[in-house]
């Protein structure tokens, strides 16, 4: 890996929900300027990992650590992580009737700007600020006047997620199955948005099932997650191999067939 600073360092992370272990010793390091893809079957723990990094209260970290720019995230509320520059693009963005999309975007943008030492934007200056980001995701401005995600199509919700990412300018963006439910045009627009936002000082972690997203956004690293752990890491060619061969061979080569194989004291 390059000598860029590590933005995200996950070490031996074990996570439970309702006394059931979901993540069984995840190790992952993401450095500035990198794009990583995290692939795996349904239930392998990908979405859990993304939510744990974002601070979802339902999950308990039983061992290990998550460092973000060298700072341990344990004990930080979700909003503190977001303000520090962590962004989670949701697989299923929540619909919130009655909360104006525009007002939500302005409040969240200002929360991030405050940490960055930037001036708070009032309603008028925010709309100017918003305009060029709207073009990035080719989003109809009429969606700003609507309630947050309410009645949005799957593609519109994902564009709205990328719009939020563009406004918040995160240090690390985790996009959880951003490609699910997108038609070809929407996928292209979302991918172009992600590519344009990626730069040498930030990093992106794409969670996906499909190679088609990785044709539009080329990752340096592809990880395969199974049974609550990353079992294999490779370059972009690994995604192609998964497309061709499925996941079983990854399990077989790692000698793991269930989370029980990774219970405390057994895992390597």
């Amino acid at each position, binding site marked *: 890996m390059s000598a860029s600073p590590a933005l995200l360092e996950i070490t031996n992370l074990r996570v439970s929900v309702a006394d059931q272990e979901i993540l069984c010793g995840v190790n992952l390091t993401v450095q500035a300027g990198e794009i990583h893809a995290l692939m795996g079957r349904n239930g392998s723990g990908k979405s859990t990992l993304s939510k744990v990094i*974002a*601070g*979802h*209260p*339902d999950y308990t970290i039983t061992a290990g650590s998550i460092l973000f720019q060298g700072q341990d995230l344990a004990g930080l*509320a*979700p*909003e503190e*992580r*977001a*303000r520090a520059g962590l*962004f*989670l693009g*949701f697989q299923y*963005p*929540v619909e*919130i*009737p*009655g*909360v104006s999309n525009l*007002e*939500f975007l302005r*409040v*969240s943008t200002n*929360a*991030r700007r405050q*940490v960055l030492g930037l001036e708070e934007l009032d309603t008028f200056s925010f709309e100017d600020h918003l305009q060029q980001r709207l073009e990035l995701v080719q989003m109809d401005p009429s969606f700003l006047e609507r*309630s*947050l995600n309410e009645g949005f199509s799957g593609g519109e919700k994902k564009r709205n997620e990328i719009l*939020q990412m563009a406004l*918040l300018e995160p240090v690390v963006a985790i996009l959880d199955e951003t490609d699910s439910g997108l038609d070809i045009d929407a996928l292209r627009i979302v991918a172009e948005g992600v590519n344009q936002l990626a730069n040498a000082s930030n990093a992106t972690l794409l969670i996906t099932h499909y190679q088609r997203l990785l044709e539009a956004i080329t990752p340096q690293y592809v990880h395969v997650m199974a049974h609550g752990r990353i079992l294999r890491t490779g370059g972009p060619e690994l995604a192609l191999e998964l497309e061709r061969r499925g996941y079983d061979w990854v399990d077989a080569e790692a000698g793991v067939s269930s989370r029980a194989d990774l219970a405390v004291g057994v895992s390597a």
Partner: protein
Amino acid sequence: MSAGNQVSTRSQWLESLLTTHANAPLASQGELRQAGLPHGRVEDWRFTDLAPLLALNPAVLRPRGGAQAAVASWPAVEQGVVRLMLAADGLTLVAAPGSAPWPAGVELQTEALAPYPLNSEATDLAPRLQAVLPGPQLGINLAAGAKLRLEVLLEPDGADALLAPRLAMELAEGAQLELWLRIWCRESALCLPLVTAHLARNARFQEGQGLEGCSAAVLLASSHVQQAPDSHYERTALVQGWGLARQDPQVLQSAGQAHTQLRDLALATGQAISDLHSRVRFEGPDGRLDQLQKALVDDQAHSVFNGSVQVPRLAQGTDAAQLSRHLLLSSRARVDTKPELEIVADDVRCSHGATVSSLADDELFYLQSRGIDRDRASSLLMRGFCAQIVASLPPLAAAWQPLERLLANAHG
């Protein structure tokens, strides 16, 4: 308190009220005595604790004049809008500063309004109490095609206020009425607003009520609206602050084929009781109802919703939708919600739903994951919960910033 004591207390309370207002028509006094104050064995009042009403001393309740100091804080009157306020005697309505004159096509009823005729099944209390109590009255006839935008602002000044306003509206064919009725009882009070309306064909009545009280004030509000075919009635009420707030809006589509929209938003905090008992009856085919009731319930407050929709056999083609949504902000808050659909006709679309929930964790997490702290996220979600109802208020209400007022009270 034993059941016997409660009966005794209710009877004594009523007698004290009648003694204090002995000049009331004897027939009305007799009807009220016979009906008595409702008790928990009456289904319509099963969940409505009258303790805040009984805590008021009926011997000292008096009509109070309008709070003159409040006038300066009111928003400017929009052009063409008639604004009425409570006069110094507390018994009449007068034009407020800046009010427009009555527009063409509006005829005021000059004689005292007769007590509203109640059938034996009526269980709402406000009309019966109104019939024996003095209060400001306004009777308006809108001629065919006439348009009226009207604000009625009632803010009694002083404690132990008795406020029993009666608004009676007759809308001829094609007439349009926009009404903003705002009541604010800052001190102990018994408030009994009664709005009645008859809508002829193609008439349109958009009614907004902003009903704000305090923990020592009691609201017993009724409305009786009768709609002819092709008429349109929208009622949106915001209720907050009262120790006891009970509303009984009743709509009769006399021959079906009309459109009714009911919206209600209540904020109940402390030990308040907020109760909405609505009744809509279709006496003909192809009527439509769109009803949404919401309440924010905090502390040890109690919210009650009973939504009666009656669709007899002759009301084929009725399309009625009713939804009740409660947001619980405290583990000790209490909700009783009951849809009451009586459907005899077989070719109808009637839906109902009820939700009682806390702020949704997934919504809070989504907002927090965008850098919004939990308190602000809660506040945004509460605003979102309320905004849908507030958006239905008539345009006249906007200048009063009803959503901001409600949310300010919600946050204590």
